[in-house]
């Protein structure tokens, strides 16, 4: 037997280490559709409890939308379950091409290529379009999938301080001798909910003849006046060279992602991106549901507008209750608690009061910046938000942090 007691012992030690340091992750089983209200079994084996979900990426409430579900059923009926092939052998249907065209039109780019996920898009894109003669200059807070993708690429890499345009320009000057320089950022940063200053970044890229890359996974569908994304918000549509995004959040939330941007760069991905070349693409069911999600978004901005109203209401409510939130205007609203244990206790107490939101702490966020990350959805009605605000206020009161400054909370609970 190759899996010896020694091998088992090694893994058990590692897993116990994770448990002891409090970073062991455990899933919560949901017995319902994804929505504003969900039925959760947690801890495993306990009875199912109905709670308000305020931590999903279901920004537009499309995950269980009847029209999306209906379209997915139709996709299953007319195009089958799977392709049993990668794209370039016999794994491309007309609807894959249709979805690529739809994304291109929606984002205002030149072309698009689908990937099994945005994680795969980010894993494949850099290696496909950059070489060891180039440099990737990324914001320090970009998503882990971008970091993994950069690690797979032979181009040199460097980072600039989060959203610090002076530091970015220094780096652009430092690497002036490179064949290509690519500036890399998230559109909306997933932990803080702030947005990249794309107008300034586009200006700097123009000035220094650099390419601009944006991962807009937490923006596509709802950021900007018509939900096109962060590039629409900052008035730079057509000026971002590469956009990667996901269908696994606002756009129905199933799975799948893409690279969208300059025609030649997308074509390079079709020729060279390994997750595209060596794995099946999105199944027909998901393509069909996602196409319907795009149709719904293009017909009206109603859902995006409702999300914006809900976000304003939620941010105002938390601030007025005396909690510290990260300033911004996106539906990602971190409630700052600073201390890791406090964030875990706060989350557990919220759950007891019927509110589902998770505490994040180091190493997911920097040391001393523990928080509850809340995410607003268009699926929320005002009564959901009011009930959540009541719970946040009651627990804030319990821990005596309402109206307190960061310093005061740290003095009470430590970093």
């Amino acid at each position, binding site marked *: 037997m190759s899996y010896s007691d020694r091998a088992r012992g090694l893994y058990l030690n590692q897993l116990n280490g994770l448990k002891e340091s409090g970073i062991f992750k455990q899933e919560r089983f949901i017995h319902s559709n994804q929505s504003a209200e969900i039925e959760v079994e947690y801890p495993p084996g306990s009875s199912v409890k109905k709670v308000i979900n305020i931590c999903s990426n279901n920004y537009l409430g499309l995950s269980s939308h009847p029209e999306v579900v209906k379209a997915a059923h139709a996709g299953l009926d007319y195009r089958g379950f799977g392709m049993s092939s990668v794209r370039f052998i016999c794994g491309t249907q007309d609807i894959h091409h249709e979805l690529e065209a739809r994304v291109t039109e929606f984002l205002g780019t030149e072309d698009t290529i689908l990937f099994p996920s945005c994680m795969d898009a980010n894993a494949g894109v850099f290696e496909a379009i950059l070489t060891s003669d180039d440099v990737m200059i990324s914001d*320090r807070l970009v998503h882990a999938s971008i970091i993994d993708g950069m690690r797979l690429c032979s181009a040199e*890499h460097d*980072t600039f*301080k989060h959203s610090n345009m002076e530091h970015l320009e220094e780096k652009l000057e430092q690497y002036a001798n490179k064949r290509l320089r690519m500036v890399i950022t998230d559109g909306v940063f997933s932990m803080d909910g702030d947005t990249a200053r794309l107008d300034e970044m586009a200006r700097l890229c123009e000035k220094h003849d650099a390419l601009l890359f944006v991962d807009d996974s937490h923006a596509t569908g709802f950021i900007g006046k018509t939900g096109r994304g962060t590039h629409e918000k900052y008035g730079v549509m057509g000026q971002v060279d590469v956009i990667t995004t996901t269908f696994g959040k606002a756009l129905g939330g199933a799975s799948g992602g893409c690279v969208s941007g300059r025609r030649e760069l997308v074509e390079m991905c079709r020729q060279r991106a390994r997750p595209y070349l060596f794995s099946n693409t999105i199944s027909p069911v998901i393509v069909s549901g996602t196409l319907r999600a795009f149709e719904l978004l293009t017909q009206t901005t109603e859902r995006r507008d409702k999300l914006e109203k809900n976000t304003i209401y939620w941010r105002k409510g938390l601030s007025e209750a005396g909690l510290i939130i990260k300033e911004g205007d996106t539906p990602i609203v971190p409630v700052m608690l600073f201390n890791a244990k406090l964030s875990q206790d706060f989350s557990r107490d919220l759950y007891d009061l019927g509110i589902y939101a998770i505490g994040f702490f*180091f190493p997911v966020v920097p*040391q001393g910046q523990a928080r509850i990350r809340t995410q607003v959805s268009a699926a929320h009605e005002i009564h959901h938000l009011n009930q959540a605000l009541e719970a946040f206020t009651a627990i804030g009161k319990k821990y005596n942090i309402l109206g307190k400054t960061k310093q005061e909370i740290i003095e009470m609970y430590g970093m």
Partner: protein
Amino acid sequence: MDDIKEVVLEYVKAEYAEDEDEVTYDTPLISGGLVDSFSMVSLKRFLETKYKISIPDDKATPEAFDSVNKIVQLVKEFQK
């Protein structure tokens, strides 16, 4: 040799710290979350260029880069 300490501290402050961050010779840089392991690469590159040394990847560990004092120790080891 003390000037290495000053140079590294100044570089770390300018390159990684925000205005509100207090950085001393013993501040934990990586385990404290000030410098992430991905950004550490530019620090290694800076040291190699500035001091004309080559730090092998197996020596450029997060532990060896975890404070200004430890970094100075590492630089001295490869200056020999």
